[in-house]
């Protein structure tokens, strides 16, 4: 692969509530490629993507984040979003009184009085969200409905890099297939990138990921053949997998 980097992280250390969660991590993500991010519970995966997005409560104590060559370390959430960096939430908040339809229009850059195009309507229908347009965002949505709504919002934002926090957790088989193939379709059609946090391998049946990455003890490791990584994790555990891969120097990146 000779893809350019879309995101580069150098020596990044992050505090959450005065506790150091990520220490001096360095890595990059490639343009036009999906990356799967594995890691045990509490390894800092959500902290990492929250920091990349600039969410409050994640304090960068050192290091820098570059997005498409630009230093975004000090930029606000909305500025990052406007540059094309977006995130889907694992547990999105309920927004009382704000209809999903209106939020989707905002994602598309439309006014609430504008109509959806036929193409957009089809996409909403494909996500099985047509009957949710008049519902308040996330209010009373099931787990799967929230995920579908999150991913559709992201696609409507037309991002260059999607950060997806467990888009597959708590969704049924059918929804998973839908979500995963829509992500794949978007990445393929637009040449954009994705970083997908998951604990399961199923999503890779539909998302053709280029890399499998592991966040372990505050360190970020990336390797090719994500499916193989997943199999290794199942066999050897996270640590065993990293140790084994490091020995074979297979990874294009495995900083210490």
């Amino acid at each position, binding site marked *: 692969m000779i893809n350019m980097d879309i995101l580069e992280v150098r020596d990044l250390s992050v505090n959450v509530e005065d506790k150091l969660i990520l220490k001096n991590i360095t890595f990059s993500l490639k343009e036009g490629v999906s990356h799967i991010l594995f890691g045990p519970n509490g390894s800092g995966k959500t902290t990492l993507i929250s920091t990349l*997005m600039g*969410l*409050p409560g994640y304090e960068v104590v050192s290091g820098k984040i570059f997005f498409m060559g630009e230093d975004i370390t000090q930029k*606000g*959430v*909305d500025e990052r*979003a*406007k540059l094309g960096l*977006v*995130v889907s*939430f694992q547990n*999105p*908040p309920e*927004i*009382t*009184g*704000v209809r999903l339809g209106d*939020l989707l229009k*905002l*994602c598309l*850059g439309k006014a609430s009085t504008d109509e959806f195009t036929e193409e957009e309507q089809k996409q909403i229908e494909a996500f099985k969200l047509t009957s949710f347009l008049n519902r*308040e965002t996330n209010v009373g949505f099931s787990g799967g409905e929230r995920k579908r709504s999150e991913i559709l*919002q992201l696609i409507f*934002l037309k991002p260059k890099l999607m950060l997806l926090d467990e888009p597959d957790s708590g969704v049924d088989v059918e929804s998973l297939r839908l979500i995963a193939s829509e992500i794949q379709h978007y990445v393929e059609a637009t040449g954009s990138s994705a970083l997908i946090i998951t604990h399961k391998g199923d999503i890779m049946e539909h998302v053709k990921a280029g890399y499998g990455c592991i966040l372990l003890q505050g360190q970020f490791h990336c390797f090719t053949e994500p499916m193989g990584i997943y199999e290794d994790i199942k066999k050897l555990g996270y640590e065993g997998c990293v140790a084994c891969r490091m020995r074979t120097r297979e990874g294009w990146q495995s900083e210490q």
Partner: protein
Amino acid sequence: MSSNKKNDLVNVPHQILEEAQKAGIEAQEEKRAGTFFHVDQTTVHSKVNELFEGKLELMDVKDALQKYSWLKDYMWKLVDKNKDEFTKKVAEDYSGGYFMRILPGAELTFPLQSCLMITQKNLEQRVHNIIIAEEGSKAHIITSCLQHSNVPSAAHLGISEIYVKKGAVLNFTMIHQWSENTLVRPRSAVEIGDGATFVSNYVCMRPVRDVQMYPAAYCRGVNSRVSFNSILYGHKDSQLDIGSKAVLSGKGSKAEMVSRAIAREGSKMIIRGMIEGDSSDCKGHLECRGLLMDDKSFMQSIPELIAKKKGVEITHEAAVGKISEKEITYLMTRKLSRDQAVSLIIRGFMDVGILGLPDALNVEIKSIVDASTQAD
């Protein structure tokens, strides 16, 4: 004021009509079951849409008292004349008010509208309104109370007594568009009969000097229902002390109260709610959500639940605080600036969907809410 005075709405001065429209009054009378205008101390217009003749009566209350000797029994029956200085003043002297009577079994498919307006400086407007929803009738009433934008200061004292008889359904929406120097003291009470439903919607979006009101609903009928919904936007030093009281004495009666309040720019708001369960099968729920936007403002929620019989079921939820940072951040990840996110949340928070209005009114009320929240 004579009852045969049938002015057309076109005869209402243009400026007055224009102001009224901003407060939800529909100028095209054919879209309303009836229209009533009381400006300062005179009823200037009172007319029933001919489509609804024989279904409702609409006139100034003073004319109605001359026409119907029985009506005096409805005056000061639910509101105590000696309750406070304001009721005493109205009892002493008042300039009129509306008398609305929806006849038995009649269904008003269009809303009935009334506008009480102040155009004179330093006027103390005193009105006494009576609404009777006769057995089995159904109606939506929208009443706008406002002060013309040219008037610096004034007061409005309004008594309203509302009777919802057996099986009737009455949806009553009140829009207040006062000004920064208006003192407002409505005194309202409702009696709800067997199987009858009363829905009160109150919307106050413009700044006001001082409003204090605490309408009471007496659910005396078996399976009677009452809902009070309020959308309150306190800004520019407005003082709002708004509450409602429901007394559930009818078997199986129910009360529901929902308030959404925003306080900013030095506004002081007290949101009260009382549900009293006086019969064993009654139920009530009270919900209050308030957003405080700055340190200069103040918000207090005072819910009161009273049970007097075994088996009474009354609950409440109240939350007063700032806008959730998580919600703001969430919307910012969707390319909205912080200000845009806050304004979207506020508009959503003041969602008129809680009011249960017919479509014809929903659009108008939504535009009033949007106009106010967008101006900031």
